[in-house]
């Protein structure tokens, strides 16, 4: 089986434009998630909203090339699904990504 089909410039340009648009919106999505995660420590409704927001980011960010943001959102969703408290380390990584949403990994954003 061959690998990925060749990407012609039209498709590549269209993907790049979509990616730029998503990147412009990503800090807002990350900041909202960080806020909900912080509030969720004491607010059940905020915790559920954080879980939904994390799930959406998890399934979306990677398709636009922002794997680090998606993977971090996935870790947060899993933590919330388990009923556990979101570790401070994850929240710090999330807050760091707000400023550097295109970082390749949460660690590199710190």
């Amino acid at each position, binding site marked *: *089986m061959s690998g*990925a*089909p060749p*990407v012609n410039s*039209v*498709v590549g340009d*269209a*993907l790049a434009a*979509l990616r730029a648009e*998503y990147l412009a*919106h990503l800090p807002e999505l990350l900041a909202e998630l960080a806020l909900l995660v912080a509030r969720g420590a004491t607010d059940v409704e905020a915790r559920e909203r954080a879980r939904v927001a994390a*799930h*959406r980011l*998890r*399934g*979306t*960010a*990677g*398709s*636009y090339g922002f*794997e680090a943001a*998606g993977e971090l959102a*996935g870790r947060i*969703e899993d933590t919330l699904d388990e009923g556990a408290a979101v570790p401070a380390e994850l929240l710090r990584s999330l807050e760091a990504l707000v400023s550097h949403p295109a970082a390749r990994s949460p660690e590199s954003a710190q």
Partner: protein
Amino acid sequence: MTRASAAPARRDSVTRMAGTVIEKVLMVDDEPYVRRVAELSLSRVGKWTVILAASGPEALAAAERERPDLILLDVMMPGMDGPTTLSCLQARAGVAEIPVIFMTAKVQDREIERYLGLGAAGVVCKPFDPIQLPDQIRRIVLGEYRTA
């Protein structure tokens, strides 16, 4: 709900797989950014006509109106979720036989088995690579594998 048609030059690229002709795909997801990148992938890379729906009820209406050859269905949606939508599709004459591929961001073996047990043709994991997605779909429809 919107439609993204393949360009006329691509109409010869009808995908014929295991006796199933795929020309029109219904993509269902409540997340706008997922719909947008999927639309681009399926229409420009896959060269299929794409119908978009943002919810289970929209999907049911679009399936009956458009009679797509394949449905990509998000699992976790507010209101009517993916499995419930599939159940409704299966109960409706004329659309019950349309292959459905679930798309999910939570990939656990037991969940995948459950989705397949409900009658899904396969499961695609999110996030997907927009360049690879059409090929993953083809492989599932061909029966090469059921999870991508």
